[in-house]
């Protein structure tokens, strides 16, 4: 049984799927964090949201770095 696509196409498919989402996520959560920066941080839910956005940004960076490593850029 053959695989679905060539090895090169599969590599780029994974890169676009991962890098695309990770990059978009990085931007999305950065915007969320900036937009909510002035909200009351004594509210536990606001702190939860900020913590989630920071984690989302870190996950986005890891995703993009992984893609760059995958292609030998870093």
């Amino acid at each position, binding site marked *: 049984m053959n695989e679905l696509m060539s090895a090169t196409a599969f590599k780029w498919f994974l890169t676009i799927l991962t890098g695309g989402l990770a990059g978009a996520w990085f931007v999305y959560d950065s915007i969320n964090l900036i937009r909510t920066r002035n909200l009351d941080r004594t509210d*536990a839910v606001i702190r939860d949201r900020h913590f989630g956005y920071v984690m989302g940004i870190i996950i986005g960076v890891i995703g993009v770095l992984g893609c760059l490593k995958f292609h030998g850029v870093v």
Partner: protein
Amino acid sequence: MSTAAVADPTSESADAPAVPRKVSPFNPANAVTASRFLTLPPLYWAIDHGYHQYATLFILICGLLDKLDGLVAKVFNCRSAFGELFDAITDGICYGFGLIVVAAYGWAPWIPVAAIIFLGVSNTAMRFVYSWRAQRPMNYKSYAMERLVAYTGYLIGFATGGMEVRFFYWWFVPLMAVIVLYDTKRMLFDPIPAARAA
């Protein structure tokens, strides 16, 4: 079979009290959630036969169905507490199964996989404690964990696709540990929000 009651905001009017709407567990959103289990046998088959691309396809379908069930719940207006719980359990089973299989076949390192499963089980236990502290069925909404669950789905894809497996798996563990610690503090020690009136 019992039904889960949810408040339907669209049924409220100014002079009538909100009546909890009954949502059957046999609804389209839960059907989509349940269909995710159908991706597990072909996932196992693909890994067992060494078909990396097919395995990636099946875990991708599983992840897409996870996103689709929320959309279906909105479209058919069939969100329920049972549906949320069923979705969380399905996430745990599908992604737990996938992680164990890729580790068992040597496609992913065992130590981070074991750590991830341990932290995941611990987090689930904390959620039960949180619900017990609240004295009512209550799900702790963790913004950080929501993001990490998507990363978990990707972890299996990284293993089936052979994409920087060690990098992604080893970075996942400290991130998950920090999030579980934060959520543990919130669930076990912080005050619980009061129940909202129906």
